[in-house]
């Protein structure tokens, strides 16, 4: 655990060197210990220090959803999360959804339904959809659309994204991975 108050030197008025801190996160099942400045976002920690570049930086202000990851099973925006605050947490990124070479059902369904064009928002869309399914609050297409509104798709692939999520929620089609994507 990161030690509290006494460990952090008082800040001077002038610019001082970053006071680095240690945080241990369980990322996709692997313990990763980081020594980072407190202002490092979880998004930057994943991309810059753990080389997990699947999670994307879009707006960096919590408005687009490209940076969505699961922390302790709940979907959040990693761009508005400080990594030091998640010491001890379980983080799942897009890289952690597949089981070995078997894609996650949402990954298969996104390919099958052509639920993307440029693909930049896709890791966030898929992590968000995984969170949505775990929450169990969406039962209709309207509810999927509403509860997925925190993920923007600039290419406008929304109808296919909803279709992919509906299919996985219904439990059908996930096993048809052989024909996925084409």
């Amino acid at each position: 655990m990161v030690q509290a108050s006494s460990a952090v030197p008082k800040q001077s008025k002038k610019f001082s060197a970053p006071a680095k801190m240690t945080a241990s996160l369980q990322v996709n099942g692997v313990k990763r210990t980081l020594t980072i400045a407190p202002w490092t976002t979880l998004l930057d920690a994943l991309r810059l220090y753990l080389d997990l570049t699947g999670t994307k930086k879009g707006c960096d202000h919590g408005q687009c959803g490209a940076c969505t990851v699961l922390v302790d099973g709940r979907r959040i925006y990693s761009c508005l999360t400080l990594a030091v605050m998640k010491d001890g947490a379980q983080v799942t990124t897009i890289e952690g959804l597949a089981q070995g070479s078997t894609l996650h059902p949402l990954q298969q369904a996104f390919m099958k339904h052509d639920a993307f064009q440029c693909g930049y928002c896709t890791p966030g869309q898929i992590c968000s959809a995984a969170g949505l399914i775990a929450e169990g609050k969406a039962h209709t297409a309207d509810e999927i659309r509403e509860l997925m509104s925190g993920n923007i798709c600039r290419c406008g692939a929304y109808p296919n994204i909803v279709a992919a999520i509906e299919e996985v929620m219904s439990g059908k089609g996930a096993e048809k991975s052989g024909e996925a994507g084409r």
Partner: protein
Amino acid sequence: MNNFGYTRASDVADAVRQIAADPAAKFIAGGTNLIDLMKENVARPSRLIDITHLPLNKVEETKDGGLRIGALVPNSDLSYHPQIEARYPLLASAILAGASQQLRNMASTGGNLLQRTRCFYFYDTTTPCNKREPGSGCSAIEGINRGHAILGTSKHCIATHPSDMCVALAALEACVLATGKDGERSIKFADFHRLPDDTPNIDTNLRSDEIITAIKLPPKGFAANYSYLKIRDRLSYAFALVSIAVGLDIADGTIKEARLALGGVAHKPWRNHEAEAQLSGAPATRETFMRAAEIELARRGILRTLTQAARGTPQSQADKRIK
């Protein structure tokens, strides 16, 4: 972001001690607004005091039959809490009308109250803003302001409070529990947020060395007849141009008690006592609602929300059709 320090509070007393010792420090819980403001250089705290490990994450029944909501209960958990869904559905609906599920998963109950305006000029450090820099002027008054305040404004500021949850809490007459050096105090929701007057830089009446520990809901939840209607430019994940929270207590077709609060139109959730007085004791009919809605702006929204509440068909936050 500026160079800041980071500490953790071990308990509420420690949190109060830490903030009192460093007035330029800020508490952080969900961080959904504060980190954004820090990225824009609007907020430049000397230190963040992480309060997420404090034991303030329970929803408990109170002796008077109401509920006490811990300040760290995430917005999403609160919106889906069985007691909130059953007894205070107006609150659940208002929460679900705001932000996105990712933000609701992160955002805390206490932090929702303390979020700052989304006025573009407040966020843009290259423009004058009395809320950000007192005395520099207000860019919004002569600027792009179609989403700004129309009630309770001052010549110094026309910013709005962005919360949906707070509009429901105002209608429900919640109380805010805060702890400072002198112990705990209860603040009526109506007295919590401020109007801008000549100090728009101060959003609330919370003292700088106090921490919000809980929200208390009174027993009455208006669960049978309520609606939260939010009018906005985009059907989800957008701030309100106007939102209307209604709770009605109807017996034999007569309104015994009415609550009506507006969001997105003032520096604080705008409780409309005049309209409530018009409604109380009157038959729950369209004519009554027309009279109440004529008092102020947002007439069509108020009329529609009153009608939805009286019919027992509250606005769905997923089905966007307004019925």
